[in-house]
């Protein structure tokens, strides 16, 4: 018995050690590099870069696109995960694969696709022009691109959990006469709470950092269609190495803040749960 315990302890620390090493080299070092580069020319340069008028406008646009992406994908994630796991129908596998496609499409291609769909080459273009609607190289295009790249995140988190949970509880409540919405809120949702939270965080993180697709669709109009990652690229291309990193550090810190908040919510939530029991 004793022997076994020390055995599993050794396994534990080996695994924890590997994890630490991996996280340190792959995540913490790049993070530190960004922050060090950002501060290389001192605080003044940093503050100046971060509070620049165009930086602030870019930040607002990024937040706007992120908010849209989260709302849209939350609705989609809940509906699609529910549909896929709770019913049996033909073509389910194709539908699941289709939902995942946006993650695997190269962001550049994603942008290109939307340019082809709504840009001057498209048959829709004359109609859109008549209505005075600009999709590409305007804010709607940026939002579309952001929604596209984050499309599967929430449903992807929910599906495995719902699948593991099965449909028995829902079927039982349905037989007892509960409606779809009630089943969802009372029976299903408590199971997927944490997965849902993961999904939203993934979605937010990816949305604020999205670069490739947005870059193809934005037109890079300063103060109008520049998101924060694009602003970083432009600064970089203008030989403003340090300010570029300063602005990226905003994104990184934003991300870390969100991730830590999530961690805390989850921690408190789970502890309370156990207390109740």
């Amino acid at each position, binding site marked *: 018995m004793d022997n*076994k315990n020390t055995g*599993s302890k050794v396994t534990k620390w080996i*695994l924890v050690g590997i994890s*630490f090493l*991996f*996280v340190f*080299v*792959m*995540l*913490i070092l*790049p*993070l530190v*590099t960004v922050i060090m*580069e950002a501060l290389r020319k001192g605080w003044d340069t940093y503050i100046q870069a971060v509070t620049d008028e165009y930086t602030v406008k870019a930040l607002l646009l990024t937040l706007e696109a992120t908010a849209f992406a989260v709302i849209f994908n939350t609705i*989609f994630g809940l*509906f*699609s995960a529910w*549909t*896929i796991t*709770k*019913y049996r129908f033909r073509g389910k596998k*194709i539908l*699941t*694969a*289709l939902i*995942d*496609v*946006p993650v*695997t*499409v*190269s*962001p*550049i*291609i*994603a942008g*290109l696709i939307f340019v082809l769909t709504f840009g001057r*080459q498209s048959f829709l273009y004359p109609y859109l022009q008549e209505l005075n609607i600009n999709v590409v190289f305007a804010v709607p295009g940026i939002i579309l691109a952001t929604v*596209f790249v984050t499309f*599967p995140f929430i449903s*992807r988190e929910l599906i*495995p959990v719902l699948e593991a949970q099965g449909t028995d509880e829902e079927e039982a409540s349905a*037989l007892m006469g509960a409606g*779809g*919405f009630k089943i969802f809120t009372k029976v299903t949702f408590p199971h997927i709470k*944490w*997965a849902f939270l*993961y999904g939203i*965080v*993934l979605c937010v*993180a990816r949305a604020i950092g999205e*670069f*490739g697709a947005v870059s193809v669709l934005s037109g890079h109009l300063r103060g109008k269609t520049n998101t924060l*990652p694009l602003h970083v690229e432009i600064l*970089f291309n203008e030989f403003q190495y340090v300010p570029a990193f300063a602005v*990226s550090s905003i*994104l990184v810190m934003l*991300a*870390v803040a969100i*991730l830590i908040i999530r*961690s805390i919510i989850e921690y408190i939530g789970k502890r309370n749960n156990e207390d109740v029991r």
Partner: protein
Amino acid sequence: MKKAGKRVIPAFGISMGVTLAMVSLIVIIPLASLVIFTSHMSFSEIWETITRERVLASFKVSFITAFIASLINMVMGIILAWVLVRYDFPLKRIIDGLIELPFAMPTAVAGIALTSLTSDKGLVGKFFANFGIKIAYTRIGITVALVFIGIPFVVRAVQPVLEKLDPSYEEASKVMGASGGKIFRSVILPEILPPAITGFGLAFGRCLGEYGSVVFIAGNKPFETEITPLIIMSELQEYDYSSATAIALVMLVTAFLILFIVNLIQARNTRILGR
């Protein structure tokens, strides 16, 4: 039971309707426009474009590096998810919080940071240079960037399932005298393999298409370290939309097939598990 319970749960129509509407708007219509655009070309033209030596070489580079990177991510993802769910140790919350960092960091920034770390003047690169290993500007460098990009996928796919997994099974088997390795293989692995494979598929697909971070670390030498998305980019620079979309279509179809296969594997596993 399954057959009988086919549509017991209400609201099928509305859920399906909303799902399909949204999938069409975001995925199907745009993809269709890509296909329509490519259909301007004849099949032989497409074939000629995608079998040019340089394009083929780039496919090879992209597929090999993406595959290795996703494999590394699958193993590390399972280990990380396991450690985060099952063990308590200092700084756990912070590590858990950092997992999504690769998503939030703009890919170009990640690429520049990783390159400066792994070039032979950088912190990590200097260390490996002692052993004659070059990281930046080689395929190893590409793989490193792709590992970075793909970290969250497997971890976040496995983690929720592992959390739902009842530890009482393991305790039971432990009481019955099964060794740690055996418990892992026969009790835990079957449960977490399907999500791990999903994560692998997503990471692989994402890695295939990754551009922003890789161009900085790759060196971009034709036939050696030139990735397919870069070729697409250079076709676009030459205003050659047809070639660009043809190559893009190959990447897309591949990605879709991978996802489809992954879903098949997952469905099979689920069935074996008796759900």
